[in-house]
């Protein structure tokens, strides 16, 4: 490994440098200075030759004399930048000390730095090392980002595949348990019934988890497709309230819907929006004590319409608010009847609502609980 004090872990051995100068003595001096650095060096005696050599040598850095017969250093640099764009190697101009204007023009032409003649070996070595290190770091960072995106995509694919393959067997287990519980294959003893109900409950919560993982994978992979249609918010909410009341009754909890004076219409994917409503209502039931009343309200203005769900829970602790709508953002607050939580539900809600150009938020109602508010653009 290179023992450079700046970037001790960056190995610059074998990096290619193209030195361009019409003065053979200067080229020899540069060769002498860089000899012990382990770089691969190529030499060109003119701008034209440099352009030709660049294409086959693929340098990592170009040392370019400004004053040359034929095309000068600035033109050579501009041509390189034009030809190779972002992938062009950094260019360090070589100029005589007296030509201060050259420095400015050099930066204008796309150079990254300059060296003045006569060379001070330590300066040449240090500057070249700095630019090569920077370039290496940028390369490494790009590689890393690429690797990470690939790994992340693979993770999402894996998650999706897993979840997908688990769904069918889980739905069968749940369905069969459900049917047994309904005595579809004969009457069960109380003990058998209890076991069947346990199987049903366990497969139900696994199915929920698998579905949520699948949702996250789908959304993260950018595959969330909205099948939009003009829809009445009240209609969606009413259906969810009706279905959720069956489950909530087990906790002696009631969900009330306040019928609005107007029935606002929004352009949404019904199934996806139902998922949001279901999720918020289920959460409200989950985090409210037994025997609570959950209130669902419809709101509308000239531009936005939506709904809100008020629970009787402990509210959202201020210091945990930032975690609420994030993946796996479970809070310290616990469900009141041993219900399960994946920590994905609200993150999915947020992603669905945002895909509809809507907003989701939460307010604490002092002494009473939390109110989750979803707002969507209305159809004008």
């Amino acid at each position: 490994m290179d023992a450079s004090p700046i970037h001790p872990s960056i190995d610059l051995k074998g990096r290619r440098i193209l030195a361009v100068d019409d003065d053979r003595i200067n080229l020899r001096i540069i060769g002498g200075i860089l000899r012990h650095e382990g770089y691969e060096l190529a030499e060109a005696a003119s701008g034209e030759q440099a352009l030709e050599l660049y294409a086959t040598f693929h340098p990592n850095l170009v040392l370019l004399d400004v004053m040359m017969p034929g095309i000068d250093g600035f033109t050579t640099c501009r041509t390189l930048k034009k030809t190779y764009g972002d992938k062009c190697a950094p260019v360090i101009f070589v100029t005589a000390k007296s030509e201060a204007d050259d420095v400015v023009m050099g930066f204008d032409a796309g150079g990254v730095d300059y060296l003045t003649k006569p060379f001070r070996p330590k300066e040449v070595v240090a500057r070249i090392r700095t630019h090569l290190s920077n370039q290496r770091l940028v390369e490494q960072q790009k590689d890393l980002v690429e690797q990470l995106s690939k790994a992340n995509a693979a993770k999402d694919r894996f998650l999706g595949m897993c979840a997908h393959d688990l769904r069918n067997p889980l739905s069968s287990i749940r369905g069969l348990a459900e049917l047994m519980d309904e005595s579809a294959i004969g009457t069960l003893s109380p003990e058998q019934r209890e076991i069947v109900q346990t199987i049903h409950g366990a497969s139900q919560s696994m199915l929920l988890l698998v579905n949520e993982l699948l949702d996250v994978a789908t959304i993260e992979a950018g595959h969330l497709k909205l099948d939009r249609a003009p829809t009445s918010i009240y209609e969606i909410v009413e259906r969810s309230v009706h279905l959720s009341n069956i489950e909530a009754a087990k906790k002696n909890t009631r969900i009330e819907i306040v019928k609005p004076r107007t029935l606002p219409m929004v352009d949404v994917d019904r199934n996806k929006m139902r998922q949001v409503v279901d999720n918020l209502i289920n959460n409200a039931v989950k985090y409210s004590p037994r025997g609570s009343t959950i209130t669902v309200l419809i709101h509308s203005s000239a531009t936005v319409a939506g709904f809100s769900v008020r629970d009787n829970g402990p509210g959202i602790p201020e210091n945990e608010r930032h975690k609420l709508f994030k993946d796996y953002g479970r809070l310290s607050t616990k469900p009141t009847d041993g219900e399960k939580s994946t920590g994905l539900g609200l993150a999915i809600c947020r992603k669905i609502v945002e895909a509809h150009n809507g907003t989701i938020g939460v307010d604490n109602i002092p002494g009473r609980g939390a109110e989750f508010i979803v707002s969507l653009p209305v159809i004008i």
Partner: protein
Amino acid sequence: MNFSGSILLVDDESHIRKFISLLLRHLGVTRIFEAPNGMEALEVFKREKPDLVMLDVNMPVMDGIETLRALKQLDPDCVVVMLTSLANRQTIDQAVALGAANYIRKDAPSEEIGRALSETIDTCFEPDGTDAGAPPSPQ
């Protein structure tokens, strides 16, 4: 459920066939035939002439869409309900365009599966169990 006809259940996963057939029996359907893929489904269809076919979309050998096409060729009036696990809009639209009467998500709770099936039966059959003609599009 008010249905005296027979149902052919096609799914490559035996646990799904077990679950759906038990559900069907629970709903009062007595004549149920099963097939694990499209090929066998066509054989059973020709032999048993079921009144309704419940057809899985993703199957080896011969998938649901291909099977649906073949079934419609054998009998343009046959009532087919697609069984899906992930409701892929494109596949559903394709199936409906090919003449499927409805689709049911098999990962839905049994109550919902039963309701969707009843709806299809109510719209596709007269109360005495005879075919009510060309099935309307779902929803």
